[in-house]
Each structure stands twice: as structure tokens, then as C-alpha cells.
């Protein structure tokens, strides 16, 4: 696992935000590593543990708890569709299906809370997430870190075109 200097500097700087306990830096470090590598590998977990003078289990138990962390690589572009009530009422279930179809992702039938789904070509991955806090403009989704509101199914091809 190669940590570029810029990332290493950023990590060291972030640790200073927690003068009382380095352990508090676990979540920010996991975010930084996931942003860089796309997911949190076993190697990354061991690395964070060593960096913060903790046991790997202290890190692993967070990776498995928090929904945003992934232990395997997502697609090149990752789509998160809000599943919760107001968005569901505004059509998010059918929006997810449309995304899957347009992005060539096979969706197992009947599963609401499917784990992260990835297309065979690795270009896109998708998951249902819980409330994204924009219930008034549902259905909403995120593609990578970009947020989209009032997403119509017709707009899906256009949206995907932006993420090649």
C-alpha cells in the first residue's frame, strides 16, 4: 500500500485536530484512505491501527459498523440513491431500477436493502442509502460526492453521461 506524500501530510495534519486522543482520528483517516483507494483494505486497517497506536480490531469494528465504509472496490463511479420514506414516495425505488438498467447493473429480485451492486464492466456501482436529508426535493441521489435532487428517471441517461 503506497501512501503518497501529500496524503501522508494530510493525515498527519488531521491527527492534530484531536489533541486529547489520537483514537478520535480513526474516522477521518478511514475517510482519507477510502477517498484515495476507493475502499478500506485489510492493509489499510492495519496501517491506521499502527498509525494511531491501536489494535487492528479497533479499526475493523468501525469499518464494519459505519455504512459508508467499503471493504471492496466500488465501481469507477458510485451512485447512492436515497431509499427512505419521502424519497420512496417520490419514486426512489423505481429510480434505482432505472439507474441499474441504464448503468448495466444486475439487480437481484426482491431485495430492498441489497449490498453494493456493481456492473460487470466495473464502471458504475450503486446502493440504496438511508435518508440523505433533502426530503423536500426527492428523489435524491449522490454520484460520487455530487448531490442531485428531484432526479427524474428521464434524466438518468444524461446524468450517467457526465460520469464516464
Amino acid at each position, binding site marked *: 500500500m503506497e501512501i503518497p506524500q501529500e496524503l501522508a501530510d494530510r493525515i498527519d495534519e488531521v491527527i492534530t485536530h484531536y489533541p486529547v486522543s489520537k*483514537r478520535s482520528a480513526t474516522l477521518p483517516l478511514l475517510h482519507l484512505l477510502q477517498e484515495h483507494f476507493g475502499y478500506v483494505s485489510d492493509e489499510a486497517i492495519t496501517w491506521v491501527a499502527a498509525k494511531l497506536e491501536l489494535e487492528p480490531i479497533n479499526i475493523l469494528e468501525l469499518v464494519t459498523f459505519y455504512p459508508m465504509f467499503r471493504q471492496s472496490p466500488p465501481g469507477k463511479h458510485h451512485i447512492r440513491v436515497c431509499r427512505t420514506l419521502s424519497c420512496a414516495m417520490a419514486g426512489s425505488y423505481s429510480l434505482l431500477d432505472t439507474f441499474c438498467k441504464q448503468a448495466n447493473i444486475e439487480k437481484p429480485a426482491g431485495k430492498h436493502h441489497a449490498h453494493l451492486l456493481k456492473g460487470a464492466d466495473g464502471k458504475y456501482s450503486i446502493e440504496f442509502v438511508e435518508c440523505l436529508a433533502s426530503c423536500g426535493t426527492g428523489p435524491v441521489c449522490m454520484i460520487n460526492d455530487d448531490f442531485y435532487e428531484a432526479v427524474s428517471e428521464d434524466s438518468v441517461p444524461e446524468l450517467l453521461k457526465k460520469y464516464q
Partner: protein
Amino acid sequence: MPAIVRTPHPRERRIVFKNIDREGWTTDIDCYLKDGGYEELKKALTMQPQEIVSEVKASGVRGRGGAGFPCGAKWGFIRPGETKPIYLICNADESEPGTFKDRYIIHQDPHQLLEGMIISCYAVNARLAYIYIRGEFPLGAKILERAIQEAKEHGFIGKNVGGTGFDLEIYVHRGAGAYICGEETGLIESLEGKRPYPRIKPPYFPAALGLYMSPTIVNNVETLCDVKHIVKMGGAEYAKIGRPNNTGTRLLCVSGDVQKPGYYEFETGGLTMGELIYDICGGLRPGRKLKAIIPGGSSAKVLRADDRYKIKTKQPDGTTVEEEIGVDDIRIDFDSLAAVGSMAGSGGVIVMDDSRDMVWALNNINEFYAHESCGQCTPCREGSLWMQKITSRLLDGAGAEGDTDTLKSVADNIAGRTICAFGEACAWPTQSFIAKFRDDFVAYASKNGEKRSDSSKDSAPTEHKDGLPSMHSTGL
């Protein structure tokens, strides 16, 4: 953020949301300063910290995150002459389904939040503060980090703030998609780098044993913004806004089946549910009738359109008069919503019309809570999943005859038996949906029963001697 720009409704009273969707408004500190920004901080720094606490107490402002606990009383728990370091945490985890107010403050007016936060830190003598922002707001985190940097360059954060000798550092801390981190003690555990298992109270009241076992104040984004305005107008003047015990303005988020969903700011209790839905939000879609309202975020108990409530109202002469009101007449404030058996919660109003299936709606909510239970307490970890399995099988046509009662009994055995309020949050939807729409559930169950025909005979719930149907016998 490409927010949908809209002009405020004439009935709104915009104080916290003054700058939201404002023409030409940016997140730059120069824009904020040109508009009189950080003047309240300068004023606050001329006051004694204790004076600010007194003003906040006098304002009567109640926490805007959901519980409605008086902010001044919370601050008052910090012991005078406290020798341990004191921390302040801004709860920007906004994750109660139906709530989307803090998003706009964070993305469009970060300096208002910072100003409120710096004043609050000065008032409670916190020298280190964190903004715990939900992981799904990556842009919001960047905006806040930039705002903190700008505030530092202007000497509002850092060493010797405003020449007062008060040092303060504020950092942004991102969550990672877990709803339970909105619970203040879960948030604190998360900030300590642990699984966010809420702590039991007593003894772990954050104001006594909070972050790193030191006194810690956790306030919602909106509450911290309110502090700035309380300093500006004075506690007594602020308390004149709204109604007694429900002071100030309130941000309301309306979603679901109304013509104009969105965010609004009103004097607390300044309007009724009917006015909100029909006058402000343009009513329901043509040809549709109101069926249900969830008034304060998804964990608030659901209200049924034809409900009638007997409530007691205090008259100016001190006597109380009982009157009967309908859903449209409910005043939107803490006490009025509590009086009809629900809560104002986080201000998220979800409206459902007669096209909505209540079993489907509850199942959606149950899926949320089953997914978000932290798993620490058995009744919640198991019960939230059982409830979801039951509503899910009702929808899938595989329900059993007694499922409505089983569902209710599961919910009844979660509330009050857990470390944190998540237990109530996940039980209240099920309890209230069944109480208000029992027929819908029974209809599903019996329709399913027909389908199951003979094979269902040995899977009907059996009563245990304590009256609790066995979960095993219902196929869970």
C-alpha cells in the same frame, strides 16, 4: 449546491433562514461581514460568559434537534469553576428522515453557524469544539472547513479571540452514514473513535461526563444559530417571538404529498397544521385527500386525517378550558404536538394522501430503523428487525392472521427498555400506525391468510404465558 431557489412565503418570519436563497448571497466571509456578520460575536465578547448563559435561559429557546430540551438549562449544567476542560459539539448529523433544515444553513450560511458556535463556546468556556457533520455532506464539510479558515484569518477563531484572552479551536469531524450518531452520547463515542453505542444516562449526561469524560455541550445546528440572534435581541425580546414555553422561530421541513414541499421558518406555534399544508404548501395534489401526517421526523407518532383530540388550553385568566380539535387545528409547537400524543421533534413534517398504503409506509420506516439500530440493546436490535420482517411479509403476501398484534407487542416491548431513545424512535411509528390504521394491517393479514390457506395452520402465533406471542412460531 444547486439549491432550488425560492422566495419566502409572506407568512414566514425568517431569522435563522434570513440568508437562505438570498440574491447574491455567498458563503464567503466578506459577504457575511458586509451584512453585519460577527457583530453579535463582538457584542458577546464584551459580556461576561455568565450573562450570555442568562440571556439564553431567559430566551426560553428549546433544542431544535428533536428532544426540545431547554438550551439554557443544558448550559446551566456546567458547574461554575469547572476544572476539567469543557467541550462543545455542534450536532450537524441531520439524519432524522423528513428533516432537511440544517443542510441549507451548512451549505449556504456557514458563518452564521460559526458565529453562534463561537458565542456559545465563549459562554460555556469551551476551548475546543467540533462540528460533527454527517458523512453524506462532503461538500458541506468542505464549506465549513473553508469558513473556519476564514474566521481564523479574521481572528474570530484561534488564540486570543477578539483580544479577550479566550482561545478557541473548531474542527469539522465527518460521520460515516450512521443515524445513531445523531444521538448525543452515540455521537460522542463516535467522536472518540469508537462504535457509536449510546451511553446510559445517568451517569453519562454529556454536561457532566461527555467527550473524553469531560463536561460537553452538544447542540443542534439550528439551536446554535438561534444563540446568535438571542445575543442580538436579548433573551427577553427573543422570548416574545412564538408562544410561552415555545419561543423563537422554528424551521419546518415539509415533504411528501403536498404541492409545494420545502423549508420554511415561522414563529413557533404561529400557524396550524391545516394552514401549513393548505395555505403555505399549496395543499394536496388535485383530487387527493389527506390521509396521514408524521409531524416531527419519522419517529414522531403518526396523526390520522380524521383524528379528533380533546386538548386543554390555558386561558389568560389562568383557568383551563377543554376543547375538541381536528388535525388541521393543531398548532405547530412543542406543547401542542405533545398534547395530541405526538411530537414536534426535529421539524420534519411528512404528509401522506389517500393514495398511500399505510402498511407500505410503515414498512419503509421499519426498514430504516432495522438498518440503523446500533445493536447494543437486545430489544431494539432484535425488535427493530422483527418489526421490519413482519411488515415486509405482510406486503409480500406472507403475513399471518395475528401479525397486527404480534407487531404491536414487539413495539411495546422495545420502548422504555433500551439505553437510548432509539428504542422509542423505532417503536413509536409501529405503535401509532397500528393504533391509527389498524384496519389496514388487519386487512393485509387476513388477505394473506387466505393465500396461505392450509399451510398457515401451524404457523399462527401462539400465546406464551406472559401474553407475548412467540416469535419463533410466526416464522421470524
